[in-house]
């Protein structure tokens, strides 16, 4: 039922979802209230990269009343994306009898509060060259590379200190999991008992049809046995053309042709033609002010102006040098 409710909640808009959660909380006993800390199923952490710390890690608290203290991660709480730590604030909670743990003898217990994994920083132990050990606190961790962990029995990301990627913080060793009543021994699970060896039939009985796997009373036709495919179905069933689709390729080709057909350099005849027309127009100018302006903006005017300035500058430099010489001479005369 709880699963059904969370699934139903996830389909609702946020404002309505929050309202419903608060109403559900009101109807619950305090021990079972979510206190608004429900994380939707799709937002729950599932990978170690998201958690950043796992059960058994040493951490330093970076926020809250325990700020600066060192502790240990005791477990993860996936439904709220938080972690249990060995030093934590507690709140009194009344527990119904059917939820009592071993050794509990009263209704009231001090229940530890959880901490967000963002509020703790992972502690690593490093060894100096002379063999002494020292701890570091990683401000931030990043994940680069993967390896198969024998104890976790899966690929785990390699945890490194950000900006010091040579420092690897190993994952804590998990408690060895014992086989339960529902476990299958690995050699049985890995044993191969099937191999496709004929295109006429596999080993299934002759009267087996794949349709028999479906619910016989289900009216909806099987979604991939469509007689007529719609546009959306074709999009789903067609693998994306990498790196570009045919349409994109056609567009690139068209653009290339346009680019090639454009003239970037002016030919000599065109330049001659344009020059002659401009010269003709300028020579026929009668307005004296405009004539002056045209002379001013022409290339020769600018060159002459620059030459004049250069000359003036040289002259000024010469004057300054002479003045300095004069001053030095006068100083010497005064001193003597």
């Amino acid at each position, binding site marked *: 039922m*709880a699963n059904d409710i969370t699934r139903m909640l996830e389909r609702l808009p946020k404002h309505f979802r929050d309202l419903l959660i608060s109403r559900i909380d009101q109807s619950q006993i305090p021990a079972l209230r979510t206190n608004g800390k429900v994380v939707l199923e799709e937002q729950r952490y599932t990978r170690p990269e998201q958690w950043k710390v796992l059960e058994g890690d040493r951490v330093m608290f970076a926020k809250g009343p325990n700020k600066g203290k060192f502790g240990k991660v005791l477990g993860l709480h996936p439904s709220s994306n938080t972690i249990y730590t060995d030093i934590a604030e507690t709140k009194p909670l009344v527990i119904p009898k*059917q939820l009592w743990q071993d050794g509990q003898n009263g209704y009231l217990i001090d229940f530890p509060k959880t901490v967000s994994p963002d509020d703790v920083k992972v502690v690593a132990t490093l060894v100096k060259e002379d063999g002494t050990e020292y701890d570091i606190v990683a401000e931030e961790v990043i994940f680069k590379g993967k390896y198969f962990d024998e104890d976790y029995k899966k690929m785990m990301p390699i945890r490194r200190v950000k900006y010091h990627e040579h420092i690897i913080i190993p994952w804590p060793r998990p408690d060895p999991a014992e086989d339960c009543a*529902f476990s299958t021994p690995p050699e049985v699970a890995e044993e191969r008992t099937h191999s496709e060896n004929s295109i006429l039939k596999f080993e*299934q009985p002759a009267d087996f049809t794949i349709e028999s796997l479906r619910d016989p009373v289900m009216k909806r036709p099987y979604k991939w046995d469509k007689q007529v495919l719609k546009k959306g179905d074709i999009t789903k069933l067609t693998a994306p053309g990498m790196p570009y689709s045919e349409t994109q390729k056609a567009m690139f080709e068209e653009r290339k042709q346009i680019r090639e057909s454009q003239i970037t350099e002016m030919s000599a005849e065109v330049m001659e033609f344009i020059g002659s027309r401009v010269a003709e127009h300028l020579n026929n100018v009668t307005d004296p002010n405009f004539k002056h302006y045209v002379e001013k903006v022409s290339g020769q005017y600018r060159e002459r102006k620059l030459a004049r300035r250069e000359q003036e500058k040289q002259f000024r430099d010469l004057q300054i040098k002479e003045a300095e010489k004069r001053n030095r001479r006068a100083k010497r005369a005064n001193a003597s």
Partner: protein
Amino acid sequence: MSRHFHTTALVAARKRIPPTVKLRPPILPTINNIVVKEDHPLWQFFHNKKFVRDQSEVAFTGRAWSVQELRRKSWEDLHGLWHVCLKERNKLEREIYIFRQQGDNPVGEDYRRLDDEIHKSMWRIKQVLTERDHALKNAQKEFKVNGDQYLQEFREKYLTAETVETDDWYDKLERLQQAIFGIPELLDADFKVDLRFVEGVKYIGQLKFDRFAEQIGRTDLAPLRDVAELYTLFEESASAEGVAEACAKIDEYRENNIVIPASKEVQVVQGFVEDKLESLEAE
């Protein structure tokens, strides 16, 4: 006939217990008075005949079967696993129902998680079977288009190979028989020969003859006349000696001057197969 309109007294009189009957203390309705047979089929919905298991009994440390693991498993294994999962889920479903009746007791969450995990295994079994079915259909469709070309290519490779009297080539021939013509390595007692089997016999027999006829100098037998001759070649080993032996048998057979028509081929091959099985049994 009553002279009164009321009948209650008369009805009550019929029900009145006669004084001869001795009253005994009432039998209280209790579960202990109900005896259920040991082999009652509904016991399959209970784990060790327990009403509800303890929480510790449904605690699990494993995970569901992955699709990759299930792909390696035979039909019998998958069927067995499905059956086990189904029975376990029936038990769990009943227990979960009981917790649901208790106002959604949170203890039921553990049972539900195990139920979800088993459900995962079950849909993955369906996934694997669907994959196999589609693979089979695709292969058959593909073979209709490219089958002849494939067989032709195999034939060319077989005829042009330096030597085919190796274990590698024997295995290849065996796999081809099994994969395309459905000719198993070991025949069952009630094996039914079909058209495909006969096609395979013809293909393999002709292949062996074409490869070794020149080597043993028996090209005079070509063309081979009917399925009986091809079956003789098919049965012998794929080596020069085997084909030579088969050719000797064909010589004997040709003295009879019988040619088997195409309509009788399946029957004839069925007869050969049965004869062979009988002779094997006699040994």
